[in-house]
């Protein structure tokens, strides 16, 4: 029963990693990171339901707050990079290359 939820969480996490490593569109990469955070949240909620303790709910809320902060900052950075380079390709954003 709990194993089904955890396996679903692992599947979603692996799809998120796949999106991060194989796509070049920076918005898709960002949304894949959100997907990985959601998979972690599902594991938190499943564990807290099956151990009948509500600490997992609090941790999931904190993950959501961190995701909201990350969304605000990352999208501001994406807008700046798009204004600077005019592209959404992660290969173009190699400004720190020595």
């Amino acid at each position, binding site marked *: 029963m709990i194993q089904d939820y955890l396996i679903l969480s692992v599947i979603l996490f692996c799809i998120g990693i796949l*999106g991060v490593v194989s796509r070049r569109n920076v*918005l898709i990469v960002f949304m894949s990171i959100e997907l990985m955070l959601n998979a972690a949240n599902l594991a938190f909620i499943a564990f807290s339901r099956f151990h009948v303790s509500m600490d997992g709910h609090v941790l999931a809320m904190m993950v959501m707050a961190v995701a909201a902060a990350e969304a605000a900052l990352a999208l501001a950075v994406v807008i700046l990079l798009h204004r600077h380079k005019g592209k959404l390709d992660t290969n173009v954003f190699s400004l720190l290359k020595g």
Partner: protein
Amino acid sequence: MFAEWLFTGFSILSVLGAIGLVIFRHPMNGAMSLVITMISLAGLYALLSAKLIFAIQLIVYAGAIMSLMVFIIMFLNVQTEDLPEEKNRFLYLFGGAVVLAPVFFFLKKVVTSLPGSEATIVGGGFGGVKEVGLVLFRDWLLPFEIVSILLLVALVGAVLLAGKRRMSQ
């Protein structure tokens, strides 16, 4: 029985939405697929009797964060010809899947070897606003304050980044 059917439907929907996010070329299609994943995950939270998290998932994730995402995609006015050339993306996806398969099977083995805990009946107040709030402000007060500072820092940073002017002008 009904709960198992709901679990099957929501999990299939969420996995399909995630695959759509990875496969679609245009970020708007990907964002719509991710909204499907978020909403079906909210249904799974409701199945796990996490009432507050269900509401927060719908309002914050599927509502606020994804509408911000869609707003940014429309603000940047992304056309199909502006997107990066990703001719080899199915090849990369296949290679990534081959690399990730051992990780997936390892995690699956770890997860299935957990001591099996069947679902017990929980009280009607489990996961409600009052109970989660009591846990939050009693046991997790310091992390809560740190998260508030983090949100303040993110707010200041977003204003600073968005309001940046060219130094030469």
